């Protein structure tokens, strides 16, 4: 099971470490104030922020998880990209970014403060801070355990070294360093995994050969012959596709609620666009990110599908490690594929790509936590601004720096908790993932309906979250063995697959939140004047004029291009 690395593989990793730390070291002299450290001075070019935007999302859990999903669900996994990401990214760029960026808010919680009130900000800031630390701890744990099982590295050593490198470059260069490194990491991930895609496809005889080899495997499992290589074709009935969900569940649950909740409100992602140099650049950021996002399935999902063929061909000698219960660990598909096809040299590059994906995700978490903690919690509740601007700035810069250290230490702590009490961490992560859908409802209403009030938003956010929790407590996915998966109050309904339960949890959270917010808005009085809402609400903000830019270089032109490519891809793999 072990993968043996040679000196050249280690050399590549070490060179990579030197470069990421070097970028942080080079940027340290620009970190003169809190604004530079926590917001990158709002000076990042659109293409850099756009690649960082997608790189943060391409964390270790995404790469490992999506390859595993490719094996389990085939091309249906692309629903997480073509329907579950691109439309939301276009919406964020065209319709939400003008208000986010124009508001001059430094974070999503701060936007809530400007648009609504202090309590709405407080609720969101605290939930976000906790969720971010959990997420970074869990991905750190996943990486360290992978390195331990497959490379034979010591769990604690790989945990500390990878965390300390991320700490090193984010401490030195703040958000700028995280963003610039994410661009480097993006190219390392893509180029490092490229040989795997070509070799594995060549091995199974290309796309046509892959389809032929899959047919007997899928029919033996009771699915149509091309169930693993199509996306929408078998979504007429939940039972005829491996995902186990109908087309309307995919469309509404994934394509609308989950994806808009994630892409349009998650500060971790949106922060990259906030750092852009201008309003037009900020609107382009999600669109520039969407371009590579559409093609990432070919990099990580297709090799996962090929792994299914390899598993059924004993001559290939391909195996997946088993967990304590004797079930294959699908998340290890990617590293076992690297082992299968890559000789020393490019193997080091592939492992470095995994490390890079881990670091881009973790640095994203750390920098977002940093900003939310320093501005939305510390500056709002612990030590407010004084009259002395210079001293204040110095103070908040130091707080930002110290928070970086604490953020990383807390992540390490939560990684250890995950290694001891994995179930508890899974449970907490499931719970905190429920804040996105209500948050989207509240931000959306706030941006497009000037009447929406603070009291309504706060209650909508809270009740949406609580209802999601209640739904999770009352339903179970089929075959669940622990209460972590749901039904911890009572089990009133059983979903055929866990994903269906997740979709419905989000749909309920979103619906409750919308209904409550609209209802209470009609019953409460607006506390904010129209002047205060200027730039935050659609009807009170002047349209951006981009007459001087040719249409194809405007965000709208770019969005049309992205949309067309996405539709073409969906039709080809229908």
């Amino acid at each position, binding site marked *: 099971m072990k993968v043996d690395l040679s000196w050249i593989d280690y050399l590549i990793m070490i060179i990579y470490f030197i470069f990421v730390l*070097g970028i942080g070291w080079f940027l340290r002299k620009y970190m003169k104030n809190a604004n530079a450290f926590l917001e990158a001075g709002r000076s990042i070019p659109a293409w850099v922020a756009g690649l960082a935007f997608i790189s943060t999302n391409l964390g270790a859990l995404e790469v490992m998880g999506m390859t595993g999903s490719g094996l389990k669900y085939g091309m249906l996994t692309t629903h997480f990209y073509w329907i579950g990401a691109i439309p939301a990214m276009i919406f964020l760029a065209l319709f939400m970014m003008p208000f986010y960026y124009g508001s001059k808010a430094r974070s999503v919680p701060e936007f809530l403060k400007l648009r609504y009130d202090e309590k709405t900000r407080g609720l969101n800031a605290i939930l976000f801070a906790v969720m971010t630390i959990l997420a970074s701890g869990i991905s750190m744990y996943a990486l360290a355990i992978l390195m331990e099982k497959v490379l034979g590295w010591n769990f604690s050593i790989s945990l500390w070294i990878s965390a300390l490198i991320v700490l090193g470059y984010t401490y030195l260069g703040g958000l700028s360093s995280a963003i610039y490194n994410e661009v480097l990491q993006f190219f390392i991930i893509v180029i490092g995994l490229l040989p795997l895609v070509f070799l594995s496809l060549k091995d199974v005889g290309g796309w046509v050969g892959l389809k032929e080899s899959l047919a007997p495997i899928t029919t033996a499992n009771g699915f149509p012959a091309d169930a693993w290589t199509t996306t929408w074709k078998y979504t007429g009935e939940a039972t005829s596709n491996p995902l186990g969900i109908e087309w309307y569940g995919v469309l509404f649950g994934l394509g609308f609620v989950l994806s808009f909740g994630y892409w349009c409100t998650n500060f971790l992602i949106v922060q990259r666009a906030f750092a852009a140099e201008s309003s037009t650049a900020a609107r382009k950021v999600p669109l520039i990110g969407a371009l590579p996002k559409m093609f990432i399935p070919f990099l990580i999902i297709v090799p996962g599908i090929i792994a299914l063929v390899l598993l059924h061909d004993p001559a290939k000698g391909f195996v997946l490690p088993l967990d304590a219960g004797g079930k294959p660990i699908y998340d290890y598909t990617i590293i076992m594929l690297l082992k299968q*096809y890559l*000789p020393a040299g490019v193997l080091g590059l592939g492992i470095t790509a995994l490390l890079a994906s881990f670091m881009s995700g973790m640095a994203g978490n750390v920098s977002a936590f940093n900003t939310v903690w320093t501005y939305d919690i510390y500056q709002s509740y612990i030590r407010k601004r004084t009259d002395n601007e210079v001293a204040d700035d110095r103070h908040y810069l130091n707080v930002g720096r110290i928070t970086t250290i604490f953020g990383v230490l807390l992540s390490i702590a939560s990684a250890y908790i995950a290694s001891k009490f994995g179930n508890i961490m899974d449970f907490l992560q499931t719970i905190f993932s429920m804040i996105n859908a209500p948050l989207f409802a509240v931000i959306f209403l706030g941006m497009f309906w000037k009447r929406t009030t603070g009291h309504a938003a706060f209650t909508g956010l809270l009740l949406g979250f609580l209802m999601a929790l209640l739904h999770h407590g009352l339903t179970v996915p089929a075959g669940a063995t622990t209460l972590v998966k749901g039904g911890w109050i009572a089990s009133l309904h059983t979903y055929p697959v866990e994903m269906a339960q997740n979709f419905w949890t989000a749909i309920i959270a979103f619906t409750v939140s919308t209904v409550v917010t609209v209802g209470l808005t009609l019953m409460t009085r607006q506390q904010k004047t129209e002047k205060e809402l200027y730039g935050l609400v659609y009807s009170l903000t002047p349209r951006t004029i981009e007459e001087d830019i040719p249409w194809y270089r405007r965000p709208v032109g770019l969005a049309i291009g992205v949309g067309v490519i996405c539709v073409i891809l969906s039709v080809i793999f229908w």
Partner: protein
Amino acid sequence: MVDIRIPIGLIFSIFGILITLFGFFTKSDQAMYQKSLGINVNIIMGVLMLIFGLIMLWFARRKKKA
């Protein structure tokens, strides 16, 4: 502030040279390249990375001049 194309160009040029050389030195090692279906991926990827690295550096240089 910093042109990220410079470090990207540098690291891929270094990776490119290293891996191409490694590919040449291990050319006769057929057992090693059995994994990659008999293809010397090190030379191919090495050359590609070197080209990519140099293009990045060239772009960065061109911008500096302008």
